[in-house]
């Protein structure tokens, strides 16, 4: 037993350095997902029929194919075929971000739909253009409502980021596996990796809870309560 404990303690700094890689991947993917997800949601709700259909296909595509297959497709397939030289790390962020944008667009879509319709009409009646009304009236409320969904999305991406190990991204899981194959302490090291993920999930959701409180407008609910 002490042997396995030693192995874990020795590997801990190395694993924790991996959690920095994991976090960069997760934050990068979430930001990319946010930047793409908002326009996707707005387009799907307010766009022309052709745009709506295209976004529907995009969402269907990225929600229907496993992450591992998309990672292989982008990293070994598209990057080579199109002669783009991207590191595994970048590809992991891009693929996780694209998948997340499909899921996040549905979170935002739900949040926008939960706002009373009168909001948009009132903004229009005040002479705002559609674009202006969506940007200054609808989105500020919808994004606040999306924070709980976001916290879910964070824990999903965090866990999915472990799959990036398949491309050799040196995140927590990959490092645990390196050390495990060298020291033959598989079980303790994978459990240690699991614990690090649990802690990161806990800290992240806690942080997003704080964000939710921070961005809340006291005494205001969209339903006018």
């Amino acid at each position: 037993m002490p042997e396995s404990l030693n192995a874990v303690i020795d590997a801990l700094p190395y694993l924790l350095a991996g959690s920095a890689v994991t976090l960069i991947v997760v934050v990068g993917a979430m930001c990319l997902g946010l930047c793409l997800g908002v326009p996707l949601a707005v387009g799907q709700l307010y766009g022309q029929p052709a745009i709506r259909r295209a976004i529907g296909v995009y969402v269907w595509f990225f929600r229907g194919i496993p992450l591992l297959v998309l990672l292989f497709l982008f990293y070994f397939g598209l990057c080579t075929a199109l002669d783009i030289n991207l590191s595994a790390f970048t590809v992991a962020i891009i693929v996780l971000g694209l998948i997340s944008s499909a899921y996040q667009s549905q979170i935002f879509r739900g949040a926008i739909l939960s706002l009373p319709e009168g909001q948009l009409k009132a903004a229009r009646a005040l002479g705002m253009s559609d674009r202006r009304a969506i940007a200054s009236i609808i989105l500020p409320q919808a994004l606040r409502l999306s924070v709980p969904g976001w916290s879910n999305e964070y824990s999903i991406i965090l866990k999915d980021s472990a799959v990036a190990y398949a491309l050799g991204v040196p995140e927590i899981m990959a490092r645990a596996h390196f050390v495990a194959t060298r020291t033959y302490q598989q079980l303790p090291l994978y459990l240690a990796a699991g614990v690090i993920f649990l802690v990161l999930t806990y800290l992240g959701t806690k942080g997003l809870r704080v964000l939710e409180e921070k961005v809340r407008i006291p005494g205001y609910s969209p339903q006018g309560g």
Partner: protein
Amino acid sequence: MEEWLYISTEVYPALLKGFWVSLALIVPSALFGIAIGIVLGVLRVYGSRPVMAAADGFVALFRGIPLVVQLFVWYFGLPYLKIYLNPFTAAVLGFSLCGGAYHSEYIRGALLSIKRGQMLAAQSLGFSTTRMIVSIVLPQALRRALPGCGNELIYLIKYSSLAYMITCVELTGQGKILASNSFRYTEIFLIIGACYLVMTSAAGVLLGRLEGRLRLPGFEQYRG
């Protein structure tokens, strides 16, 4: 012509083989997962305090740790305790336990949403607690949990690709082998992606139909 020969003699048989392995992973994992989810869900709502706490802890653990890590624990970790599982068993075990934890969340929510009057009525008719849960509460709760659990099953189809990482050669694994031999990564993985899209879309349609089939007229808006 050569292209077509390659597809029909190499790609198609390999992917078909992989597809059956994937299916053999998904179906038992789905069934075990739902069974585990129902047991855990019931324990988390009706169990005694320590049982409830234990079930909650189990769910938190299995939902908080990435599935890849869990699979590695089962396949590469257990030999440490002199327990040897083959890749297929380890994958089914991992998918079932992780899926069960997620299913239990939906089932727990659905159980809590059943009106209290239903239970009081069952008790006043002389039902034992077990009998009440099995014949009155669960049939209604499972119908309500179906959309959530169905989503989880679609996730399972996608996550079954992770079995490749513990050397279980299913659809993705076959694709990887083909692609590494022919260097046609883009084409092969597009085909694999299409296979998964077909599977997830078909599952979505079937689950929607099942929901319609199981709907009890008059019970849809029964809330509170």
